[in-house]
């Protein structure tokens, strides 16, 4: 288990929960689609949850419920123990507490300068100008962009930079729960690593709860405490990274790409070599295999 994961899971007060949440698109027509069904999960204060699932498994639909953009056909969403739909006039404040950054957020930039665009959320919160400026400066730092970007036009940036500005726009609201839908989609390996690094360090600095939607097991395994696996509108697994990867074969049946190293371990097991199946980093595999290698560690290193 990852360092720190125990701490987070021990301190188990749920901040965001769903109760039997179901959502049906185009209800009442002959083309009804049940996007999520009976989803009941508890997201704990301060943890980083990776949400994975094949295309169309309902991940995006689920997170749109977290900040009240969609209202479940049935079921409830609780934030800090109270139903987010209980008081309609508080919906906007829910959106400030649960910051959601959608897939391809770079297409929502609209202001003349990066700083103004990042300030859009904080301004809507009605913060003072000083506070807004502080948050814009902080957010730029969180996403690893230098202050010289503040006065540039967001339309003159590269795709990856735009993406980071858009994420900064959500971070600047300093939400209690930060939800990111595929923040790495369409980025090269280096860009992906940067974004993941950025999210991890933001969380370390602010201690906020993070939900990270992704297609890639490798990305999620590296930084998540727990993984929520969606399969055809249902929750398939919701457990620690180790526990989820111990179901590697079922995951593959759901069409998920488990990390390469885990695949390797699985095929070793098929060949009759007794190695654990719940490995997902090269280091772990190295530790597990070393005793078996003749000639000691010199060769393997």
């Amino acid at each position, binding site marked *: 288990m990852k360092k720190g994961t125990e701490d987070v899971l021990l301190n188990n007060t749920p901040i965001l929960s769903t109760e039997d949440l179901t959502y049906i698109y185009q209800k009442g027509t002959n083309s009804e689609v049940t996007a999520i069904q009976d989803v009941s999960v508890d997201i704990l204060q301060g943890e980083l949850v990776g949400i994975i699932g094949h295309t169309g498994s309902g991940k995006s639909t689920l997170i749109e419920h977290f900040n009240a*953009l969609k209202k479940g056909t049935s079921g409830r969403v609780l934030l800090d123990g109270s139903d987010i739909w209980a008081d309609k006039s508080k919906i906007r404040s829910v959106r400030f507490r649960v910051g959601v950054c959608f897939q391809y957020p770079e*297409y929502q*930039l609209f202001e003349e300068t990066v700083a103004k665009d990042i300030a*859009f959320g904080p301004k809507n919160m009605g913060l003072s100008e000083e506070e807004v400026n502080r948050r814009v400066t902080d957010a730029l730092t969180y996403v690893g962009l230098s202050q010289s970007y503040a006065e540039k036009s967001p339309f003159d940036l590269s795709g990856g930079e735009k993406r980071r500005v858009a994420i900064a726009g*959500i971070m600047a609201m300093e939400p209690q729960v930060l939800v990111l839908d595929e923040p790495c989609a369409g980025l090269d390996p280096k860009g992906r690593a940067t974004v993941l690094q950025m999210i991890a360090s933001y969380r370390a600095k602010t201690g906020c709860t993070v939900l990270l939607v992704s297609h890639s097991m490798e990305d999620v395994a590296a930084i998540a405490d727990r993984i929520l696996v969606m399969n055809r509108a249902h929750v398939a697994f919701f457990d620690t990274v180790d526990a989820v990867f111990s179901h590697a074969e079922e995951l593959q049946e759901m069409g998920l790409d488990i990390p390469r190293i885990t695949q390797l371990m699985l095929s070793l097991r098929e060949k009759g070599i007794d190695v654990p199946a719940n490995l997902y980093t090269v280091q772990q595999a190295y530790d597990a295999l070393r005793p078996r290698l003749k000639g000691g560690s010199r060769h393997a290193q």
Partner: protein
Amino acid sequence: MLSDITIGQYYKAQSVVHRMDARMKLILTVLFIVIIFLCKNFFSLAVMFVLTAVSILVSRVPFRMFFKSLKPIIPIILITAALNIFYVKKGTELLSFWKISVTTGGLSTAFFMAVRIICLIMVSSLLTYTTVPTQLTDAIERLLSPLNVLHISVHTLAMMMTLALRFIPTLIEEIERITNAQKARGADFESGRFLERVKAMIPVLIPLFVSAFRRAYELSFAMTCRCYHGGEGRTRMKQMKLSAVDFAALGVFLLSLAGVIVLNRFFQAMI
């Protein structure tokens, strides 16, 4: 909601009307509009009403679809009816107060106009429900091709129309996506006075235009890469052919035209 817009919405079904040549459907729709304006009394209007009803039945498009397309113009129908009731002063007076009086003539004119508008809307929706938008623009292109003589590039116009129709659903989806993203940042579209609401649209409109232009560029590059160079010498994958059904339908419409002319002569004109 935005998704209620029915422009260019095709309703998939197996029917004679669906199978008809788009050019003929287009011609017949125009013919219908002409005939219905020729109608001078309730007898000739009845002919067109029956024709509308029969076309709808034959098309196998459920009636609720027509009701859906009628809904947005109910206010217009009501306003025209009201104007007719109060302005037309013919026949016997039914009631009067202050400067306003309602006559039998006013009532029947109002009814006449309402039926006429309803038939018009139904028949034009029938055209879009039973014809795929690309076929429709294709038909327009061919029917207008004589204009090429005047150096008007009908093909370009038709291509623009096809593309516009194709991108309506895409843009609607895009609007919903951007709206959601800005709402997630606390944008408020529901409250405030008129001017504030218009201002609140800016964070949606700018990204929408940016992405519409991006799409347009990408599309034009893609078309250029496939050697698109306009209509000259371009052949078609789907050839249009007139069949017996098309001529039969034309026959029915011409008969109705004859009926309307005759009935207009025999009975007193209403309007």
